[in-house]
């Protein structure tokens, strides 16, 4: 379903999803030609990250995890600066000192990315604690995958958030379902006896919502409920968004498995290739959202393609900017160790 929002907001959501998709496709392509190092892409989870995060207000914060690119882009972080950061350039979001695993953007509400699984849960809870003590009407969003629930910090954090009624939202993107291109028993992404995962939050009397993470409207509504509760002093919410795991990490799965996304798959089923047809037809939240916008009359195929061209152009310029940018001066390796 599509969110109950004005048309310009609906198309803005699509634009943000396309920025993420083309960014990640561009990154995989870039990694084929340049020494990019490792990274984790967000393809297949755009319909979670965008509706969840684009509705936040300035001053709200998010603490994210290794699969972070989509979160930062969803709130408007400059793709060029992110490419530059991933390539270790001086013009990167962190001046080349963070890399893909630590991208930060204060102006977009991302103080840091933690690469320690479960590392962001206490940080996000602490930001909510700060907001509550400073009397700021702000929310803190903790973004993590199902694997982070295996760390003790989640359970400690949600306990304190519940006890103190903190304005924090725990958004778990459970992408462990039917990972594409994954052989049986290969790299299981989740090893948790508890099921469903919402039981873990329910034990702390924290309200939970389970949502189809490819359903833009459902994610939007779930997040709106959680944000409203947090701002109203009602404390934390745990959201589990279910998505299919697109095989995007380097070096384990460096290839663009499902190929560059062709938006015409949304309105022309005959164009869908046989390989991964189910993915294109049913599991890709971005294509699903395009179909929903078309059927609601919010957008025409031509408008979608025109928007996509603009986004592709922006991404291409971002890549070029990153490639053309200088590396940081070697002396900066020892700067900012202390404030």
């Amino acid at each position, binding site marked *: 379903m599509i969110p109950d929002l004005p048309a310009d907001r609906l198309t803005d959501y699509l634009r943000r999803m396309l920025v993420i998709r083309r960014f990640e496709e561009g990154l995989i392509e870039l990694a084929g030609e340049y020494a990019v190092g490792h990274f984790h892409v967000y393809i297949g989870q755009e319909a979670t990250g965008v509706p969840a995060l684009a509705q936040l207000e300035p001053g709200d914060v998010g603490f994210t995890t290794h699969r972070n690119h989509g979160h930062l882009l969803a709130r408007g972080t400059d793709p060029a600066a992110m490419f530059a950061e991933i390539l270790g350039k001086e013009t990167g979001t962190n001046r080349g*000192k963070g890399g893909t695993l630590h991208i930060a953007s204060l102006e977009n509400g991302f103080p*840091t990315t933690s690469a320690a699984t479960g590392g962001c849960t206490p*940080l996000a*809870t*602490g930001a909510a604690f700060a907001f509550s003590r400073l009397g700021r009407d702000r929310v*803190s969003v903790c973004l993590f995958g199902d694997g982070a629930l295996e760390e003790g910090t989640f359970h400690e*954090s949600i306990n*304190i958030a519940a006890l103190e009624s903190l304005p924090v939202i725990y958004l778990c993107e459970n992408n462990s379902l039917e990972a594409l291109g994954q052989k049986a028993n290969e790299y299981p992404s989740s090893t948790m006896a508890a099921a469903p995962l919402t039981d873990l939050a329910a034990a702390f009397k924290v309200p939970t919502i389970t949502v189809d993470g490819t359903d833009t409207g459902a994610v939007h509504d779930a997040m709106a409920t959680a944000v409203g509760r947090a701002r109203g002093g009602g404390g934390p919410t745990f959201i589990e968004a279910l998505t299919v795991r697109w095989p995007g990490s380097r070096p384990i799965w460096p290839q663009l498995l499902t190929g560059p996304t062709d938006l015409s798959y949304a309105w022309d089923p005959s164009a869908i290739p046989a390989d991964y047809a189910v993915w294109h037809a049913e599991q890709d939240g971005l294509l699903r959202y395009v179909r929903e916008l078309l059927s609601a009359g919010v957008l025409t195929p031509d408008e979608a393609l025109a928007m996509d061209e603009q986004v592709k152009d922006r991404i291409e310029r971002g890549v070029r900017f990153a490639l053309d940018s200088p590396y940081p001066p070697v002396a900066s390796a020892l700067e900012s*160790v202390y404030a």
Partner: protein
Amino acid sequence: MAARIRYIEAVRQGLQSSMRSDPSVIVLGEDVRYGGPFGATKGLADEFGKGRILDTPISEATVMGMATGAAATGLRPIVEIMFVDFATLAMDQLVNHAAKLGFMTGGLLRVPLTVRVQGGVSGRFGAHHSQSLEAWFLHTPGLKVVAPAFPGDAARLLEVAIADDNPVVYMEHRGLYWTKGEVTGNEPASGSVVRRRGDHVTIVSYSRMVHHALAAADTLAADGIGCEVIDLRWLAPLDLEPAVASLRRTGRAVVAHEAVTTGGVGAEVVARLQAARGIRTRAPIARVGAPFAPVGAAPELEDAFVPGSGDIVGAVRGLLGEAPPRTDGQKGGRT
């Protein structure tokens, strides 16, 4: 003359004055509303309200991370870890997050966090409540480490730590809590200080071992041996200028701490002293520290483990050729 107060009261005074001057200073820890096990935070909840004194669950990892996240978003938190031994539970948040956020963001973020820990051997607490883990923190770029030996420094350097925009590990010694001293407010904010002048041997130390060093200097003075005692106070950043200046004159040094000698702060200090300009030692620099073992709980075992003034006296006599020098990093003989 300034009032003489106990070390634990000086800690409380440092907390109190910081909380009075800055409303963003907040305390998080286990049982802190009631004062904690030794009374450091006693009365703060009454004066500042429960909103600024958070009694947390027994969740060191998350409390450390929460304080880090709160420090990055507008608060100036103080975390109390009841015993430094349990800082081990919070090391991911302290080492991977608090210490590195400023650097990893290219200087965008500041983490004005103070971590109060207490430790050291005192009171037959056994191996989970008696450690001196400062070397772990010293080894982490991005952390500052301070270990006051006297009430004046306990109050003053806590205020300095809280006002610092970096994460600071503030290390109290439980065995000093009931010692008394003057609090003038004029104690230097940074660097090490000379506690006693002497011409024959330089003794470099910090925390409770400074008291043992001064006692050792008294003992040795009776034999005409003059010891210069340096109190490092800050372990990171480490200020060795007074120690180097002293060693240039004496040519002999003992570096003494209560922590296990192996891989300890003393190893770093000795290496830097040896490499300093103008140093020509008359004997290898000696280390005094605990042996490479956990501490036993039985009184006899604890006493056999913890180094004291006798060990320093033995080390000094060894340097002067009065006894075989102990430079193997093991606990010296007791007198």
